[in-house]
């Protein structure tokens, strides 16, 4: 049974008014007034276009925005109590907003939405990012149809990205998830996704909601739960991914949320990933990947410098995490001039696996382990940028595929580290 305590009395009152629905679209917000109106209009357009006969609602879980985010969502309601203009709709469309308790967190927002979807018996629920200003109404159909019409349980997206965007996904999350769990999920940490009533109902009881990974990166936890729980997965191409400007310092937070959560999940799902040997493609709609080759300004030199200074400064920490040979190779890389710098696939995978094993062994605090990986990741990004400067779309994909295969080939190495508890030099 769902834990209902997260839902306020006021939200319950609103949910009573909404009643049972076929489809719920969740929109977590926190000061997103710049983009959320555009997003909610696209969501509404998609619902009216593709699900005009079905009982649908939009739920905004807000973290206490100081701007007008909740009001902008509510304004998209269609009801008989207000003049909605010349829209031709069969039904009332409730767009409701709730301020969840506590400080802003993705986990609280998502748990509120998943709980509401459960209470409303929503057959399909989609989560949409309030920052996705590239969204079109078609996304709603693409996300929801596999769940609502075809009985899939969890739909992850594929986006059209610039070749040098999302490198944490292409160089770490996608290949490692694929190698460990055997599914080609391009976006394991999605900003848009959808899930079935069955999945939402069973996931509500998960422990992760009460732990840091569930609070900080619930989307990734849900993906892991979908994989680990044997649910029917689906992958859908949406379109261009919205570009959200991030400061360099955000990388630490981002890695804590992605790397930290994935490492954390290995212990939770060890029975699931250890025995996986085959790699499966997901049933899907649209392109499996799409990249654009527009130029992006990246300060490669600084990446190289940060790698070198990081390895030097963190050597004592790294020595407790990495195998001696791995650390030696990294230190050697610090000695070469930048145009000869090459952080190979194999070295990167070994680095990651040794970090994962150390995280499991808790040689130092989990946060410190993840932070220690940050400069190394910058080095890897440097290599990725250099390798793909002149690459075409398909060549970039080949490079990513090659990295994935390296992750898969070296998986026995992780299993060995995991089993023997070996690690730092």
């Amino acid at each position: 049974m769902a834990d209902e305590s997260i839902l306020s009395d006021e939200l319950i009152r609103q949910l009573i008014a909404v009643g049972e629905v076929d489809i719920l679209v969740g929109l977590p917000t926190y000061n997103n007034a710049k983009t959320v109106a555009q997003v909610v209009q696209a969501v509404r357009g998609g619902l009216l276009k593709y699900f005009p006969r079905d009982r649908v609602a939009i739920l905004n879980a807000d973290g206490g925005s100081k701007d007008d985010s909740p009001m902008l969502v509510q304004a998209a309601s269609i009801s008989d109590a207000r003049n909605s203009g010349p829209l031709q709709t069969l039904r009332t469309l409730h767009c409701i907003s709730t301020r969840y308790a506590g400080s802003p967190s993705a986990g609280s927002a998502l748990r509120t939405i998943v709980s509401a979807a459960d209470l409303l018996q929503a057959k399909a629920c989609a989560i949409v990012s309030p920052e996705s200003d590239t969204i079109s109404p078609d996304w709603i159909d693409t996300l929801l149809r596999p769940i609502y019409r075809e009985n899939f349980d969890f739909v992850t997206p594929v986006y059209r990205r610039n070749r040098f965007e999302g490198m944490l996904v292409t160089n770490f999350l996608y290949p490692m998830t694929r190698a460990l769990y055997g599914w080609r999920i391009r976006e394991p940490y999605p900003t848009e996704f959808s899930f079935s009533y069955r999945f939402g109902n069973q996931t509500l009881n998960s422990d992760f909601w009460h732990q840091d990974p569930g609070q900080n990166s619930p989307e990734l936890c849900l993906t892991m739960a979908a994989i680990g729980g044997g649910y029917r997965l689906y992958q859908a191409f949406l379109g261009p991914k919205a570009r959200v400007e991030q400061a360099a310092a955000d990388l630490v937070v981002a890695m804590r949320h992605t790397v930290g959560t994935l490492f954390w999940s290995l212990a939770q799902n060890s029975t699931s990933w250890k025995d996986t040997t085959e790699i499966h493609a997901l049933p899907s709609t649209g392109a499996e990947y799409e990249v654009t080759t527009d130029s992006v300004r990246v300060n490669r030199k600084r990446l190289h410098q940060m790698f070198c200074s990081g390895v030097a400064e963190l050597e004592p920490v790294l020595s407790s995490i990495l195998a001696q040979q791995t650390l030696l190779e990294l230190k050697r890389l610090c000695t070469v001039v930048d145009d000869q710098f090459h952080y190979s696939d194999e070295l990167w995978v070994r680095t990651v696996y040794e970090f994962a094993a150390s995280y499991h062994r808790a040689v130092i605090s989990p946060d410190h382990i993840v932070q220690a990986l940050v400069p190394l990741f910058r080095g890897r990004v440097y290599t990725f940028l250099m390798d793909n400067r002149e690459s075409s779309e398909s060549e970039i994909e080949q490079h990513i595929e090659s990295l994935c295969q390296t992750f898969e080939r070296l998986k026995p190495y992780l299993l060995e580290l995991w089993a023997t508890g070996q690690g730092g030099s």
Partner: protein
Amino acid sequence: MPSKPDAVWYRDAVIYQVHVRAFQDSNGDGIGDFIGLTQRLDYLEQLGIDTLWLMPFFPSPLRDDGYDIADYYSVHPSYGTLDDFKAFLNAAHQRNIRVVVELVLNHTSDQHPWFQESRKSLDNPRRDWYVWSDTDTRYRGVRIIFVDTELSNWAWDPVSKSYYWHRFFSHQPDLNFDNPAVREEIWNVMKFWLEMGVDGFRLDAVPYLVEREGTSCENLPATHGVLKELRAKLDQQFPGKMLLAEANQWPADLIPYFGNGDEFHMAFHFPLMPRMFMGVRLEDRKPITEILQQTPPIPDGCQWCLFLRNHDELTLEMVTDLERDYMYDEYARDRSMRLNVGIRRRLAPLLENDRRRIELMNGLLMSLPGTPIIYYGDEIGMGDNVHLGDRNGVRTPMQWDGSWNADFSAADPENLYSALILNPVYGYQVVNVASQQRSPHSLLSWMRRLIQVRKSNPVFGRGSIEFLYPGNHRVLAFLRQLGNETVLAVNNLSSAAQAVELDLSRCKGHILIEMFGRNLFPRVGDLPYLLTLGPYQFYWFRLRKL
């Protein structure tokens, strides 16, 4: 005649629509007649209705169930004689039941002597009583109403070697209302029946009386001119009589039929009816409240006529494409149920014989603003037969009991004007008046009670309406008010139990009295008024400040 004449009696009326042919056969020829109808007036009186709407009973070749009139001054011999009609009329009036006669003004049968003369020659005095043309290209673009049977609004007449205009079937030529002689003759027809004592007319197909090039030939100012002329004569010579318009139009286009209170007294609210069905299926009040929001106010003394089903198909002309597709898919998945732009089914089968939904729909019919019309047989939940062709499936004999021919006729079954409903769910052995009269819990008994409660309070017929818009969109709640009298209606459109909070702050201090059981409900206080409703349940509360 009713003892207390009231100029706006029709606002309080509960109308029962009946076809003489279908109600009771007194002479065993298999066809209902006026003597039979007279014999059944006690039943109608007990039901509680106070007005009868008779579908066309005039001499006719019956190629359109009497809507193809061949003589406006007589009674079809199958239904009896003019004297039989007079006797029926008197008997009805003795029971305080008014009688409204349906007249088809727009067209006649092609067998009508007027048309036979008109087609004879170009110089016949009645030539100009119909709309003739040398070509079939005039009034191009005017929509065809019976799209399933007609390809054009023009038909070739081989006798006079020219085309005649018909908005309905090709055997129903349109009268030419630009001709003063036609208008005069139509008034003579109305006067004939009014002098006999009928209480009003339901005028069929009124938007189409006059044609003009370059228009839709519907709702034209000249048509309103004709109708105003008839109304003026009616008021002058027969005050207290009523005109009811059949104009299947959007609310804004219907308003002109009330004129400034100088055209029709009443008009059917066609767009509301399909939206009531839609609202219950969608479990959402939006279609109902939306169409009523779009309905402009009508002049004092005028009234909407509301209905759930009638002798025609459930028309879907006054809905959007999206709504029409939805209605077809939800109420007529079997394509044989579809006819023209509508669904040819009775109330009970449309609602899957769900007693709760039938009650809810009748509750809405009786409580929304307007005068309700009950189609014969729907008060006992009669079924239909889509295999009978055209709209005949909803015009089968009234089911009085489980005996021979449902006690409708002593004729051999094969001689009945129509087959009876025989299936195990709606057949006359199961669904009939006699069996339902024996049970206080039958639909018939419940309908009697509903009508009784409706008639107990004039607020339903004459009061204003104000929607409450509670957050729960599955609940349709509104206040009806007339002077100091206030009634609250709360309807659960959904198949599941619902909780609803109503903002009754303006009624603070009032006690709610449930009108069917007369039980008291808590006084309205400062907080929103919380009610729970079972599936498809509705409440009518009288609000009293004591």
